[in-house]
């Protein structure tokens, strides 16, 4: 009888699921709750999973907790959108503001590996100037980190995930060659390329975290097209099949179905600084407490501030790490607008990873009437998602909807990942309602500013030209969609204007770290996962350096 990873923890009794073998197990070190480990990490996605691996490999004792299940993709993942909603964080959340963000399937994972289990695998480096966008480009905020240092960590992550990419990348400083060759383009990718060529801008094969050649026990990508609903063949280089197995092999313990509700902080008398002592978490129906010397929060831009708020105590009535008042503020999502049309030719965009080709032209060209930039990519929505776009975005129902859906195999689309400006008023707070664990649920508020609207207008107009240039018809704009999140624990070099320092370490509670996209002061116009992982690698090295100097 197969077990149910959604109801019963798999990581028990000194073993963890072997993600490369149906029904398989690997030995895993386990710690007692009352054993004070060096690090307890909340969340195992791009930030927490990567950090768990790197800290364990550096010799620290590590326990990482994830609220969701520990899947074995080969046996647990179906080729089915509805079934695979089990990958998403679908606990109750309130989304409000003038432009409420779409959550759930879009940007929130619940499970070991986090959102990387269902991300689109697009693995792009920041444009160097974005790390100093205030100084160099006149908007946003500077990161307390130099791009040259990040360039080295990008390289490390690209190697760790065996990114498939082009021989020459058309934009930015020279970069080393990608570890694996680029994938062949599907028709949706070819259509993007044709449009770019017609308009005279460069395009390239997307650097992407799915294998173009065998690796270990994983086969190359078979182009089944279910990437954003979970890869059932392990070609996708998610944290679940890369950093997590490495972490376990290096002696970290990962606990599934372990929801953290509160960080405990001790306030010694006599002027000693406050220190986190561990986390309260619920597993198998019981609240428990894991002791730790350091606590890392890696729950992404909503759950991370929510946990800091839910950990408020009499010394920190506004939540932990919040002396700046900026926890939960500057919540930033990325623009995700699209233009869709019909091609005479069959596109059948359900085949292959959805975004095999892209252009970063408008990230690197500064002749624009707005701040920030965007890239755009080819698209491959599966039927449920496509029907939702046609109905809730385009407003079709009845026979008009049924007819439009008949054109599925001819539809072609271009979609941006764009930089919205970080605004203090966009925020995550707590609502009065409670979730299934009895914890206050998050309330997420979002409103576009004029610059955001200018970026959207620019992108939609340009992509429309690109579709017209390849002869597409029935072109329409999808104005409302949201992707990646950032910003609710921004990093900086001033404790008054940031939540963590450049080492992702809380200014207020020095043994508390944040390691996920919420530390981003700005998002740039590229998917964030590569940068989150690069930052986690850097944070691990910084922790090791601090520990060596006795400053941890």
């Amino acid at each position, binding site marked *: 009888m197969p077990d149910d990873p959604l109801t019963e923890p798999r990581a028990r009794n000194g073993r963890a699921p072997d993600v490369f073998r149906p029904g398989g197990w690997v030995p895993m070190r386990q710690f007692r709750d009352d054993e004070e480990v060096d690090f307890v990490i909340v969340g195992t996605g791009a930030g927490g999973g990567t950090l768990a691996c790197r800290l364990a490999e550096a010799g620290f004792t590590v326990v990482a907790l994830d609220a969701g299940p520990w899947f074995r993709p080969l*046996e*647990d*993942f*179906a*080729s*089915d959108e*509805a079934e695979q*909603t089990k990958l998403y*964080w*679908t*606990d*109750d*959340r*309130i*989304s*409000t503001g003038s432009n*409420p*963000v*779409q*959550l*759930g399937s879009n940007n*929130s994972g619940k499970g070991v590996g986090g959102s990387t289990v269902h991300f689109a695998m697009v693995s792009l480096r920041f444009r160097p100037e974005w790390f100093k966008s205030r100084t160099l480009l006149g908007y946003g905020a500077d990161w307390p980190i130099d791009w040259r240092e990040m360039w080295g960590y990008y390289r490390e992550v690209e190697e760790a995930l065996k990114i498939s990419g082009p021989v020459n990348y058309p934009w930015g400083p020279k970069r080393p060659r990608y570890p694996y060759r680029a994938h062949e*383009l*599907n*028709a949706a990718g*070819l259509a993007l390329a044709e449009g770019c060529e017609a308009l005279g801008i460069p395009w390239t094969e997307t650097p992407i975290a799915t294998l173009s050649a065998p690796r270990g026990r994983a086969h190359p*990508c*078979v*182009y*089944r*097209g279910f990437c954003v609903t979970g890869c*059932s*063949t392990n070609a996708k280089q998610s944290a679940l099949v890369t950093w997590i197995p490495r972490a376990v092999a290096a002696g970290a313990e990962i606990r599934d179905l372990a929801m953290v509700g509160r960080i405990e902080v001790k306030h010694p008398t006599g002027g000693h600084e406050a220190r986190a002592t561990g986390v309260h978490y619920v597993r198998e129906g019981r609240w428990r407490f894991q002791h730790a010397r350091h606590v890392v929060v890696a729950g992404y831009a909503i759950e991370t501030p929510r946990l800091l708020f839910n950990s408020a105590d009499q010394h920190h009535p506004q939540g932990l790490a919040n002396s700046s008042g900026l926890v939960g503020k500057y919540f930033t999502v990325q623009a995700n607008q699209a233009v869709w049309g019909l091609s005479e*030719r*069959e596109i*059948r965009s*359900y*085949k*292959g990873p959805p975004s095999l080709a892209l252009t970063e032209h408008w990230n690197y060209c500064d002749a624009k009437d707005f701040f920030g930039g965007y890239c755009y990519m080819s698209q491959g929505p*599966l*039927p*449920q998602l496509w*029907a*939702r776009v046609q*109905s*809730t975005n385009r*407003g079709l*129902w*009845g*026979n*008009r*909807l*049924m*007819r439009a*859906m*008949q054109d*599925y*195999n001819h539809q072609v689309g271009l979609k941006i990942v764009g930089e919205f400006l970080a605004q203090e008023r966009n925020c995550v707070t707590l609502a009065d309602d409670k979730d299934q664990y009895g914890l206050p649920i998050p*309330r*997420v508020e979002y409103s576009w500013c004029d610059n955001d609207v200018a970026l959207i207008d620019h992108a939609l107009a340009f992509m429309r030209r690109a579709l017209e240039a390849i002869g597409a018809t029935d072109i329409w704009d999808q104005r409302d969609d949201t992707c990646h999140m950032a910003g609710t624990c921004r990093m900086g070099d001033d404790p008054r204007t940031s939540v963590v320092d450049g080492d992702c370490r809380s200014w207020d509670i020095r043994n508390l770290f944040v390691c996920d996209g919420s530390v981003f002061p700005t998002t740039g116009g590229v998917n964030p996962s590569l940068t989150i992982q690069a930052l986690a690698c850097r944070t691990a090295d910084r922790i090791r350096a601090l520990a060596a100097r006795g400053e941890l």
Partner: protein
Amino acid sequence: MAEHRSAGPERYPGYDVLTKRRSPSWNDKTREVIDARLRTPREPRFFDIHELATVQAIAAIITPQPAHRVPVPVAELIDHKLYIDRQDGYRAADMPRERTAWRRGIAALDAESNSTHGRPFRELEPREQEELLRRMEQGDLHDPVWGGMPPKTFFTQRLLTDVVDAYWSYPTAWSEMGYGGPASPRGYVRMGYDERDPWEPAEAHGDDALEARRINQRIR
């Protein structure tokens, strides 16, 4: 105004994704979950029978089904979703959670229908039902039964989303639109323009519908 019948000639005649059920395009997990979906109970476990009939009437307007294919039990699939309490993961501040929203939305629709037509929604003519849904979409309904839940938001974020999700979760819908369907682990080989793997459906173009049907009926 929409006519309540299927939308034009078949684009993928004779294609049925279920003929690939035993092929390398379906792994065990896929067979398990699709088999379970095809067995979705017809007796409601969340709705009462009147509510179910109302959702069936709504679904017939939103997703009018082709006559020649296995019907999609849209209302029953929504009942199942609510029974197991599967959530979207977010909602507007003035929207209740999924179960409450549906209960209240159906009651409000009946209240509106009773006050304008003297009959519950499920007993209206399709033209009248469509008109009421149109007014809901435009936010032009005001009965107190809505209880602060905006009809417009209920229409887009709950009613439309759930009906559409249910319809396109069913193999009938995939066959009708020419989608390759489940693809694990076989995936695809031919990726370019106008390229079709032998296990993908052929599209009927004008006078070659017979040829497309012949190809599609042999797909495994």
